[in-house]
């Protein structure tokens, strides 16, 4: 029987179809993977501040609604070493982040230019470790601190670039190439409620920000930016609110910087990159910063 005759045979066609479909199915793709529980540490030390705020947590199933209380592990053995000294950290409940570990004695402060080691042992025996060398203290460049009052023109899009009065600068920190810029809304003045018309139910009047407000996120009171320079203009798009603010410049160690890139520079879907983490045996960070701060007040736009 030649091939032409075979192709006229329905049984032959059905068998051929079955074989072809079987071939397709056998070359199918793997099914979606399920939830895998993992463990993370977030230890961000700040020079000159108490040795506190180390969060130990497990990772959560993405189908569950986030509850920080479910994430935080309260029974871990957490220790920090500095040379021959070792502190066993206690769990300190906190509703804001679910609680963290720290040295209860607030007089124990993080020293600059010092190597700290972290050791964490979970109840299930899992061990995680990390190490950081704290940066030297960062300072403002004299005369280039943020001005106490700041007022932008209304139409900043079409007016010439702002004068140098908006520019701030700081002294370079040895060993640090990259800095983090933070604008923290202190939100103490209820400045916005005196504005007219009071067209918002929020306590403060939101400042329009072209690039940020198009992608609204949870209403954080701080905004961060990444700078490779030791000077920056205090830019209009950095602010969310009118009123009192704190301008902060951080000098991060490599672990802190990588953590910032991990969590703040991937838009709405940060995905953990192991090469940016600094915890052996798990996920997370053990890093450090030094910071310099200055308060200022953002006035409402000109009418």
């Amino acid at each position, binding site marked *: 029987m030649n091939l032409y005759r075979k192709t006229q045979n329905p049984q032959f066609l059905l068998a051929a179809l079955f074989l072809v479909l079987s071939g*397709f199915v056998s*070359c199918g*793709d*793997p099914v*979606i*993977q399920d939830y*895998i*529980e*993992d463990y*993370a540490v*977030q230890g*961000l030390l700040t020079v000159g501040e108490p040795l506190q705020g180390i969060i130990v947590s497990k*990772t*959560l*199933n*993405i*189908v569950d*609604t*986030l509850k*920080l209380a479910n994430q935080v592990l309260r029974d871990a053995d957490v220790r920090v070493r500095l040379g021959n000294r070792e502190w066993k950290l206690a769990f300190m409940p906190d509703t804001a*982040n679910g609680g963290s570990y720290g040295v209860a004695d607030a007089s124990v402060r993080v020293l600059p230019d010092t190597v700290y080691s972290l050791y964490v042992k979970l109840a299930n025996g899992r061990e995680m470790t990390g190490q950081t060398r704290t940066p030297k203290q960062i300072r403002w460049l004299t005369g280039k601190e943020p001005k106490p009052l700041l007022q932008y023109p209304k*139409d*900043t*899009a079409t007016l010439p*670039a702002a*004068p*140098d009065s*908006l*520019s701030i600068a700081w002294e370079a920190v040895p060993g640090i*190439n*990259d800095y983090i810029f933070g604008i*923290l809304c202190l939100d103490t003045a209820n400045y916005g409620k005196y504005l007219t018309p009071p067209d918002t139910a929020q306590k403060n009047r939101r400042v329009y920000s*072209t*690039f940020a407000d198009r992608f609204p*996120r*949870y*209403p*954080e009171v*701080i905004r961060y930016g990444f*700078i490779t*320079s030791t000077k*920056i*203009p205090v*830019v*209009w*798009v950095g602010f969310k609110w009118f009123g009192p603010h704190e301008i902060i410049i951080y000098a991060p160690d490599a672990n802190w910087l*990588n*953590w*910032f*890139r*991990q*969590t*703040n520079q991937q838009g*709405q*879907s*940060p*995905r*953990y990159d192991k*090469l940016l983490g600094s915890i052996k045996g798990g*996920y997370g960070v053990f890093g450090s910063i030094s910071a310099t701060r200055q308060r200022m007040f953002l006035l409402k736009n000109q009418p």
Partner: protein
Amino acid sequence: MNPNRHFLFFFVCLAWLLFSPARPLVAQNTANNATLSGYVMDMESKETIVSAVVSIKAAKLGTFTNKSGFFALKNIPSGTYTVTVSYLGYAKKEVELTFQAGESKKLTAELKRSIKQSEQVNVEATREAEKRQINISQVSVQMEQVKQLRIGGESDVFRTIQYLPGVLTASQVSSGLYIRGGSPDQNLVLLDGMTVYNPSHLFGFISSFNTDAIKDVDLNRGGFGPEYGGRLSAVVNLTQKEGNREKVAGSAALGIISSKAFVEGPLGNGAFMVSARRTYLDAILALLPKDPLNPLPDFAFYDLNAKITQNITPDDKISLSGFLSRDYLKLGASGISIGIGIGNRSASARWTHVFGDNLFSTLNLSASRYNNGFDGNNSGFEFFVDNTITDYTGKLDLEWFASSDLTVKFGAEVTNFRFTYEQNFSGSRDSIAQIGTQTSTQTNLAITDWTYAAYGQFNYQLSDKMSVQTGLRGYYFRQNNSVALDPRLSFRYQFNDDITVKAAWGLYHQYLRLASNPNFSFFDTWLPTDSSLGLSSALHYILSLETKPVEGYSLNFDLYYKTLNNINEINLSNIRSRNVSQIFYSGNGYSYGAEVFLEKKTGDLTGWIGYAMGWVWSTFDSLNGGRRFNTRYDRRHDFKAVALYRLNDRWEIGGSFIFQSGQPFTGVSSRFQTFLPNELFGTGVTIPTDRNGLRLPPSHQLNLNVNYNTTLFDLPARLLIDIYNVYSRRDILFRYYDTSDKTTVPTDVRLLPILPTLSLEVKF
């Protein structure tokens, strides 16, 4: 197989071929035979025709014209013969010629266009011509088909190539060519001998080649001969039109995305051609009222192709080619302005000379520059990044038609590369860093390198049934002081008139590396392979079965296996890199698969159906825990169908359908919430699953095209109606997990819905 074994295998095969008893290398009793050489051209425009078939049936001789339209037939016994010249879309031409012993005849054959896709292509003649040309995995795409197969209202060479089996896409909005597991940077894209480094517009939606200006395009999906080198996967070779030597002619077209104009005509003892295309979104936006609080981006692209060809003597021709393309995007608001620009600038001068009747030479001098960058001003704080690759290349190719059985190609190439990368985040454009410096705020790098290559390639017909192509390409790279040798070998065995088996094997090296985002080709950065990294290399193994089951149809089956060594993926974790190895992760990969391609080239109905099944794997020590993973362009099944039908003189309809397995993507296995100082909610960070361990749903799309031929002010005109994505299947471009709230939301970014477009094209 280690390199020594590669060469051992190559030389054993070569020795067998050279000393096999099948046929002596130079046929005997041919010294007194005649030779016929010359050019084939279009009767009306006198434009030379590439890949036309010239044959003498009675003498069982045949050949194809080369990229310059030149051919040579050797070993013609004395006598009177009918010489047949044919090409698709043209009426066959037969010329009776009498040859004396030792005579050398010249022939310029002019073919007349046929309205129908000609069915007069001489099948037997083509078979004779194909005996010496192995051309495994090569597809010559007809420009008429490219023009009719419009995607989103734009005819596009790369978009058409994407409809061939084995050519995959990053997405349906990307014109990048992922060929048999290779990424777009592994494809050599040549335009009149000039290398084009970023052939795309509109963030990669369409290629930057205006189809009006292109005469011929070949895609070689692997196993290519030693005349091409420097890339691991494929060659796309485009030839620009020379222009009409008889009269000034042209066309103009108004489309939704862009408009274009084309002019050609006689010039001196030759012709010229100019073609330009431009979007007008920026012009439309300029007419709209501006709102500083809701700024609209300003976007545009344009390109320009030009060529001048002059015949200096009957055996000497000089052509000057130019290509320019540019895309830019500007956005300004609230004290910050950003501008992005990319562009290609290329030019070449080509001199072709025929020595005697059987040695064809091409000297090509070219310069090609690709640049991209962005700049901005943030309330007086200025910053910019600028990145450029420039090459100056001199290339000499010689094609010796030694006998009816043997064609030898050999040549040499020297390239001067200049890479520059300038980055300035100091706040002031006026702050200029010295070349070669890298500080926390500024980088100014300039690298100059020379590369040299030489090759020899033999096409030898061992017997009526068997032919072989073999050769060697050698390189020297000055900066890392390394030498590379690429042996290549391919066979052709003809079982009968309708069944041919081909096989190819070859080693390929690549010196250039591309740092790129597969979905966004705006910031492509080409880099050399410096001493911190070894050269990339690939091995191709291809087996092909070519059949002609029914007259007018060809049915081809290809099997391939390809290894990729020392390839790269960009390292996004690294902020500052002091050498190339710090910019990339380095690893290996391999791909394998099968392709089926059924094509009908003649008649009122033309088109093809293609199916490919393939696997692409990579292994990088630094990625996925060192475990192997599928690349993003690994698609298991790939089905394509293209049909173009000429209803009558007025109406032509066409359709294209594509079905592909979904792209692999990286899913997530869990999530945790992270906090920086003073953050109240923090950031939800997801834990990824295996890299590209999951797969999106399959993607598929149907496009329809209708042409209505008419006249406008007594000028020939065509109304072009296109429907992109007819049933509005909005495929997923990528999937991400939105963790900006307490619930994690898997979010799909989808591609364009149905998009009807209308264009008008007028010829003069």
